[in-house]
């Protein structure tokens, strides 16, 4: 049987990074990717946050095919005919080391895979891994079509929908309550139109996070500026989606039809329609990260920080891959690849700042299950401001009075204060 020191399943951010780190250390590494070209099966619904990535790929923004440095964040509550926004801009985020970049995965992932190849990893694309080879409870390699290939360790970086761990009985099925579906369009627009419309310059761009954009289905919307296109999509919880009876593309259409969104995308040409499942990022939902002969990295391990305002999957994937690779090197030094020796990965990961962020925001998970967050409050915000900002023929009232008027028949003050407390627990305190 053909053997490698390490086999990595998947050439996304986690797989490519693990492959690169291990090859750099002199190991004989095989990276297997199911797409004909890395990135061709991947969809980004988030941003690439740069700090952790730059530690692994120094000054990557000079070399990697990123789109725009995100220097403007809009947090928007969409009411039926209103929108209430918080507009945050940072000149600091427009200069190195930046904060985050918009990316297109069909462009980014080939670059990451090339970094692994240049470090000496063998990359094979367009080949499926059909199963993990398990002997006496220990992962000893992979099955790919008729071929069995052995390895000391297998790095499972198969992504969200990946089925290898499930097949091997190493993770349970995903629950539709804990996984969302993202549907997205890439909408082409000339760079100068994007820069004018989103008030940015040639290198920078904007990110919109929109709540209340999914017609009551639990989830949200996003708009990111790329170089010559926009990424526009909605992300909805799967159980909430099928309970709604609405097709995903219809929710996306309704989102795009909102006056605010319509103005941002108008005149653009849709050039791609895509979909991807994404873990909701529950801290309590992480899969087992190590076992005898294997480690799990990236979204295959359900690693995702989601605090409503930021969604960190790609940088988490890269960080986890680095720590997994370090743990494998330590295990190699010890000459044993058991769950116990590889367990170092878990300890290392827990010490990273992104893991700690994940724990810090663990209450945000429950917050995102509050249905009023997706339908009532975005409308309420608009209604209160409408009452305050509209010069009416009838006498108006102060903010509290306006809120009281707007709340009437929709929610009690008690519910409102409980929800505010929940929001505070999830995001503020």
């Amino acid at each position: 049987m053909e053997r490698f020191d390490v086999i990595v399943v998947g050439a996304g951010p986690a797989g490519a990074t693990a492959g690169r780190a291990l090859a750099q250390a002199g190991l004989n590494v095989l990276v297997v990717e199911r797409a004909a070209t890395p990135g061709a099966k991947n969809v980004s619904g988030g941003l690439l946050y740069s700090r952790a990535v730059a530690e692994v790929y120094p000054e990557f923004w000079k070399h990697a095919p990123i789109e725009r440095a995100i220097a403007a964040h809009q947090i928007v509550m969409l009411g039926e005919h209103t929108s209430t926004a918080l507009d945050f801009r940072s000149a600091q985020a427009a200069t190195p080391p930046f904060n985050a970049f918009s990316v297109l995965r069909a462009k980014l992932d080939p670059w990451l895979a090339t970094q692994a190849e240049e470090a000496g990893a063998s990359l094979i694309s367009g080949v499926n891994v059909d199963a993990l080879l398990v002997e006496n409870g220990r992962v000893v390699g992979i099955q790919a079509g008729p071929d069995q290939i052995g390895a000391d360790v297998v790095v499972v970086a198969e992504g969200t929908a990946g089925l290898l761990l499930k097949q091997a009985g190493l993770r349970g099925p995903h629950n539709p309550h804990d996984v969302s579906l993202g549907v997205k369009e890439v909408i082409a627009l000339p760079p100068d139109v994007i820069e004018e419309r989103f008030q940015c310059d040639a290198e920078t761009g904007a990110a919109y996070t929109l709540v209340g954009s999914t017609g009551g289905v639990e989830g949200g919307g996003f708009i990111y500026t790329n170089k010559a296109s926009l990424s526009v999509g909605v992300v909805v919880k799967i159980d909430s989606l099928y309970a709604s009876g609405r097709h995903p593309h219809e929710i996306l259409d309704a989102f795009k039809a909102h006056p605010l969104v319509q103005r941002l995308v108008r005149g653009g040409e849709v050039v791609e329609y895509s979909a991807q499942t994404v873990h909701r990022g529950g801290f309590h939902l992480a899969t087992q990260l190590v076992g005898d002969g294997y480690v799990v990295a990236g979204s295959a391990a359900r690693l995702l920080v989601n605090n409503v305002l930021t969604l960190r999957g790609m940088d988490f994937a890269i960080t986890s891959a680095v720590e997994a690779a370090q743990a494998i090197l330590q295990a190699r030094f010890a000459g044993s690849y058991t769950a116990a020796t590889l367990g170092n990965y878990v300890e290392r990961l827990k010490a990273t700042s992104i893991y700690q962020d994940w724990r810090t925001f663990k209450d945000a998970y429950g917050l995102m299950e509050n249905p009023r967050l997706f339908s009532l409050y975005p409308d309420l915000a608009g209604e209160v401001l409408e009452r305050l900002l509209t010069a009416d023929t009838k006498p108006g009232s102060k903010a509290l009075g306006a809120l009281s008027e707007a709340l009437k028949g929709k929610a009690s003050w008690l519910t409102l204060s409980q929800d505010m407390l929940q929001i505070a627990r999830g995001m503020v305190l």
Partner: protein
Amino acid sequence: MTAASQKPQLSLDARLGLDRYEIDAEQSHIAVDHDKCKTCTTRPCLVCCPAIVYRWTDERVAVAYENCLECGTCQIACDHGGRGAITWHIPAGGFGIAFRYG
């Protein structure tokens, strides 16, 4: 802005037509146990799929696997909200959707 300058939303078919697929003419990557579907009262697959791969036609689920965007939603939805009738595999190596942008 006038109504005329507003482009209508693309139909789902038109949208899928924009995408690039390497279609595996030899085999479908989606298997359905039709007996289970007959007794399924919820059929979440008919709603959840972003490409409407699943349609209820002539008393059974018709599967247009060639349109699959490979998100995996159907598997999760069917396992929990349906009868566990769908077995979604990944398409043969190199086949299926190939995003140009992603």
